[in-house]
């Protein structure tokens, strides 16, 4: 028997018209630990979901242990020995640790009774292996820390004795000690012949613990290197590439007066005190890896998260923001990340999604004049070039890009002085993306101050006049347009994580 475990050949994947994987080939041998890295949206998760059976490839073949494998579900994948531990927890907080580890099966005998004795003994053994030997398996899972719950997920996967184990960002919520323990476990599994794929944002982690590192970019496999012979700089270069899809065209705007001044903004313990200025006509990019604190900062500024300290000045006048309504009144408006969960009103029409934040200005004695509302919404829809049959159709019938444009319409109608955009082009196709960039530039030309938080470097490069890099809940550095380069930004973004691996927080600001 060859020691080839997994063979992927020419894997393609499209969602509708969006092509996310282009002919990916990948081999994994028994006992090998592969690091899979790439920027957000590079296709890492999609590829691994195909391997695990969650998604079916649009084209290409997969073989497992020499036999062709056509997986139709996660269940199929698990049956042949492939386990995928996702970054998001899928544990049940109200059940015990032991019940979670054996979820759905419970080692039940005939008659369906849970074999508590068996699951407790086995759970205790596997807890020992993942470094949680000190915890009683009867403990209610919800009482564990997130990091510990993450380890329970891994325990859940290894009791099935998988031959290929995929871990998606397993260390993001672990302490350094827990992370070390996990790497020891991975070593142990690989010595026993298990293949492992580790998806990670932490380059040091990948270099130290993986035998090979595979880089994906824009759905293509860019490089496949032995970690012994490569380094950070090479990997960053592979991840970023050199082709810029969109060109920056901010330069001609002169910097205006300071419109927004944030001083010492702090939340309940994640954000270090943040200072930031935004000038009229300026687009400030906020870059950071997942969990760096970009979103937390924007939400705290916007009054959507409790703030513990700090002051905000708008056009020279201090404003008190303790609720979102205060922020909107003062002239801030935010388009949140997560269009579906936190942006659109799904059963409302396009028109009403656009007008919802404008009803206050439209209303006469509390009544909303229908004609004026329709006119205002229709005008925005037209200037933003929203493609739709009728403005009265449900917003959910539009494409993602057009939904996002409708949300821009909402923001414009609110007539803000400062616009906060969190991942404004997430899940949007290339055409709509470029239109959205034009909209953002156009608004800056009109003198708005704009903050764009993004985890996509090309987006920051295409939009920002200045880049603020977040890491571990604080500002790791601010780069002027001249200083901005992919490498410089990523260097800053990774800097704090290297200082404090595994905590996800910078300890420096703890007081």
């Amino acid at each position, binding site marked *: 028997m060859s020691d080839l475990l997994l063979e992927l050949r020419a894997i393609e994947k499209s969602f509708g018209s969006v092509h996310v994987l282009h002919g990916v080939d990948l081999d994994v041998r028994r006992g090998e630990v592969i690091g899979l890295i790439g920027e957000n949206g590079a296709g890492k998760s999609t590829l691994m979901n195909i391997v695990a059976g969650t998604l079916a490839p649009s084209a290409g073949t997969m073989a497992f242990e020499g036999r062709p494998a056509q997986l139709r579900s996660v269940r199929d994948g698990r049956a042949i020995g492939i386990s995928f531990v996702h970054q998001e927890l899928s544990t049940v907080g109200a059940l015990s640790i032991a019940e979670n580890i054996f979820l759905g099966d419970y080692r039940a005998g005939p008659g369906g009774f849970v074999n508590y004795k068996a699951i407790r003994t086995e759970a205790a053994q596997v807890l020992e292996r993942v470094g949680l030997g000190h915890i009683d398996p009867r403990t209610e899972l919800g009482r564990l820390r997130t990091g510990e719950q993450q380890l329970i997920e891994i325990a859940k996967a290894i009791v099935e004795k998988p031959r290929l184990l995929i871990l998606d960002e397993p260390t993001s919520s672990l302490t350094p000690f827990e992370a070390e323990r996990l790497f020891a476990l991975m070593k142990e599994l690989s010595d026993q012949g298990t293949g492992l794929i580790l998806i990670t944002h932490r380059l040091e982690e990948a270099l130290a613990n993986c035998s090979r590192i595979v880089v994906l970019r824009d759905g293509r496999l860019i490089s496949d290197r032995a970690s012994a012979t490569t380094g950070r700089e090479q990997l960053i270069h592979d991840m970023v590439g050199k082709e810029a899809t969109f060109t920056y065209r901010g330069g001609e705007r002169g910097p205006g007066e300071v419109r927004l001044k944030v001083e010492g903004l702090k939340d309940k313990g994640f954000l270090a005190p943040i200072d930031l200025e935004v000038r009229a006509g300026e687009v400030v990019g906020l870059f950071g890896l997942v969990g760096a604190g970009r979103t937390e900062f924007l939400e705290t500024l*916007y009054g*959507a998260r409790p703030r513990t300290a700090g002051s905000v000045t708008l056009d020279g006048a201090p404003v008190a923001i303790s*609720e*979102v*309504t205060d*922020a*909107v*009144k003062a002239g801030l*408006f*935010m388009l*949140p990340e997560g269009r579906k*969960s*936190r*942006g*659109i*009103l*799904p*059963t*409302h029409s396009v028109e*009403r999604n656009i007008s*919802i*934040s404008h*009803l*206050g200005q*439209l*209303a006469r004695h*509390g*009544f*909303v004049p*229908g004609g004026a509302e329709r006119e205002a919404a229709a005008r925005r829809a037209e200037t933003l070039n929203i493609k739709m049959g009728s403005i009265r159709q449900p917003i959910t019938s539009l494409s993602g890009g057009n939904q996002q444009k409708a949300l821009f319409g*909402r923001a414009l109608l*609110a007539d803000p002085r400062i616009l906060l955009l969190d991942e404004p082009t997430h899940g949007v196709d290339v055409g709509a993306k470029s239109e959205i960039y034009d909209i953002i530039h156009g608004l800056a030309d009109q003198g708005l101050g704009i903050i764009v938080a993004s985890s996509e470097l090309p987006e920051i490069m295409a939009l920002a006049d200045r880049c603020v890099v977040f890491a571990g809940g604080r500002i790791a550095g601010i780069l002027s347009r001249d200083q901005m380069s992919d490498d410089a930004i990523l260097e800053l973004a990774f800097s704090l994580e290297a200082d404090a691996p595994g905590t996800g927080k910078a300890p420096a600001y703890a007081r």
Partner: protein
Amino acid sequence: MGGRVTRSLAQVFSHREASIALMILILFVALSFANEYFLSSRNLLNVGRQASVVAIVALGQALVIISRGLDLSVGSTLGLSAVSSAYVASVTGSQELALAAGLGAGLVVGVLNGLMVTRININPFIATLGMLSVARGVALLMTGGIPIPYTGWAQWLGAGRIGDVPFSLILLIVLVVVFHIFATRTRIGRNVYAIGDNPKAARLAGINIEGTRLLVYALCGMLAGLGGIILAGNLASASPDLGRGYELDVIAAVILGGAALSGGRGTMYGVLLGALLMALLSNAFVLLGISSHWQVVAKGLVIILAVGIDGLRRGRED
């Protein structure tokens, strides 16, 4: 051509209000053949009067449900308002004060519900379940469990007629129109729908969620208070047990009328239709001389049927 007609018919029936209207129509036609007394204006107006209290309270409940809340306390609020009003009438003799006391008691209960939900973040089901018990208990304490005779304005509200038309029915129609306009044309009404549709998005869009929810619970309490005065007036007596189990009829009317318990969906005329359907059903059982016990069964079946059709159509969501 045929296809287009089918399609537009399908479109009409994609609104739950339409299926309820159809059910009402079928029942109406069937009953007019089954019993010659059914179509008499006296009987029809009576059906309207029977529907009126449930429908009036259901208007408030509908707003609460559209904003993704629930008020289980409306039955008890109704009882508490009735005895408060009757008590003030008997002590002061003032009709104005009595009316204010009834509405005020409902308002207070509604505001307390709203505060529990918005300030202390108690789940609406639990908060109003607690209030269901508290309000009923207070009503019993106030009266010692003994009904208070109640005449005056309330009696006219509950049993009076303008021409042949019961006053409570006229009041209902006026309130449906007013609340329809409130829900669809005012800023606050529109915010109620937005909050129920996606509370997180509504908050980030700058809508005052807490304030709007508080108002909605307050309105619901006040309408329950009005319902209590009408019901007590109709019976010329305010019993502390008045409105026991009413919350179920009220919620049923709202849900039958096309509102979704998950919020964001529902109309005021739908509520009217829901309440009418339930009143028609009880009328049918009386006219056809079937045991009223069957009526209880039928009411439950109609609710399950109406919501079930909708569930089948939408498919599974998880």
